[in-house]
């Protein structure tokens, strides 16, 4: 059985998690270890349920208030981007 990686993201509302295209978002890595909760910026596809995105990892969603969305989303990361995009090196 494939084990799925788990991530966390915070949104103001679910419209930020558009399901019909690649989106860019910040996710925290929930997998155990020293770097748990380390943030990454990714380009990914998300879906409101796992069956819409077979083989995807799990994306836990919380709102800005910290309240959780009741059901996890699914996420397939296509690219990792620079987390902090500044013109100052």
């Amino acid at each position: 059985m494939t084990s799925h990686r788990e991530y966390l993201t915070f949104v103001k509302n679910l419209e930020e998690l558009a399901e019909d295209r690649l989106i860019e978002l910040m996710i925290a890595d929930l997998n155990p270890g020293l770097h748990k909760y380390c943030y990454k910026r990714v380009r990914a596809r998300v879906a409101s349920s796992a069956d819409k995105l077979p083989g995807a990892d799990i994306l836990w969603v919380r709102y800005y208030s910290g309240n959780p969305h009741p059901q996890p989303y699914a996420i397939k990361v296509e690219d990792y981007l620079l987390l902090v995009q500044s013109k100052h090196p």
Partner: protein
Amino acid sequence: MAFRDIRQYIEALDKTGDVVHIRQEINWDLEVGAISRRSGEMHGPAVFFEKIKDYPPGYRMLSLPFDTPRRWAIAFGLDPNIGVTEIQNEIQRRIGSRIKPIVVKDGPCKENIILGNEVDLFRFPSPMFSYGDGGRYLGTQSIEVIKDPDSDWVNWGAYRMMLYDEKHMGVNMGIWNQGGTIFVDKFVSKDQPMPMAVVIGADPGSHWAAQFRIPAKDSEVELAGSLRQEPVEIVKCETIDLLVPAHAEIILEGEVLPDVMLREGPFCENHSHECAVRLNPVFRVKSITHRNNPILTVTPGGIFGLNPSTMPAEIITMKRALEERGIPVVGIHSPDETFGMLLIVAVKRTGDVNVASQIDHIIHAVMRGRPTMIMVVDEDVNVSDMREVLHTLAARCHPGRGIRVRAPEMCINTAPWLSHEERELSRGANVLFDCTWPIERPKEEIPRRILFRDSFPDEIRDKVLKNWKSYGFK
């Protein structure tokens, strides 16, 4: 004699029984937060975590270091059993002067120096405090050191900081604090990174000084010297032109980027609610220096019913500001449960019809964003007795002319009642409850409050007290 560092302070807490040493392995992921919160809610001791999961021996954490009046007293070398008023009076006495720091060439904070690619903020056991927080918080009991580029002014502040990755943290800094104002006015405006040092685990006097609201251009490091009654030893940073306490446990050196804001939070703030996500500046770390066996000082924030450790400093600042402007303050208090958002001021009755409004304006000019609710009462009200205070609110505050709301007004961005848009702008409202008897009402027309303590002739009162048990009372 002042505490040279946090380690001497822990030894003092050991002697008075104000710290618990936990030697079994504890998980930084929620377990540290749960233990800290429970101890705080029980008004219990500080917690020293000596063994932390995933981390090598010697990497330790001190939680709730300054979070009760007993520990405030110990931090200043006072008897832990004295009251809050005595602590405030002693602090007020000490801060009347300033003691300049001493610059030293080296210090224990440089026992380990990590630069460049070796920098990894995850080398320290930053806790995930609460279920639902936005991330791990390395900065909850820290000092942020910033310099005004156009003068000699060095500002110390205390801002929460959330880990993003190995080299970046979000910093909750904005226009409601001096550091944020320097950042926006002097660095963002010129699109220049702002050098900043983060100090973790300094001596108690330095942590306290960072939390004081003192006027711009005043020196927190000199204030720390006054609080300690000895100068602070400071040492030059490795990669930036700033000076930091030489005996601190951990120093992070870097710069706040002028062109990046990332989502930071949620985090349980001093009102015991999750403070919602906000766009905040990003601190990029270039160097870490630390002591051997470093101690991370942390506090989970928002312990219900526990006065934030900033409160004595803030009360003193406000009282001084009022007295310096001729307001006849009789009492001033902020109840623990209101986390600094409600201030109650008792004044002597004067001929000035605007004394409540004057107090309102002075406080907001000095404090920038908190408190948001001020209640002004006459001198016959004990501001520390909540039954009396609530009674006064109901009995003496005219709903029509006694409540004055100002909106929009600058407001600390952590207030739970702010909308998302208000939070981004640090713009909320504040309210004044004027519970004083109107000055135009003649004294003979003011209703008499009837209390045993002041409504009977002395001889009747004394007689009743003397015979109380003989009447059959226990």
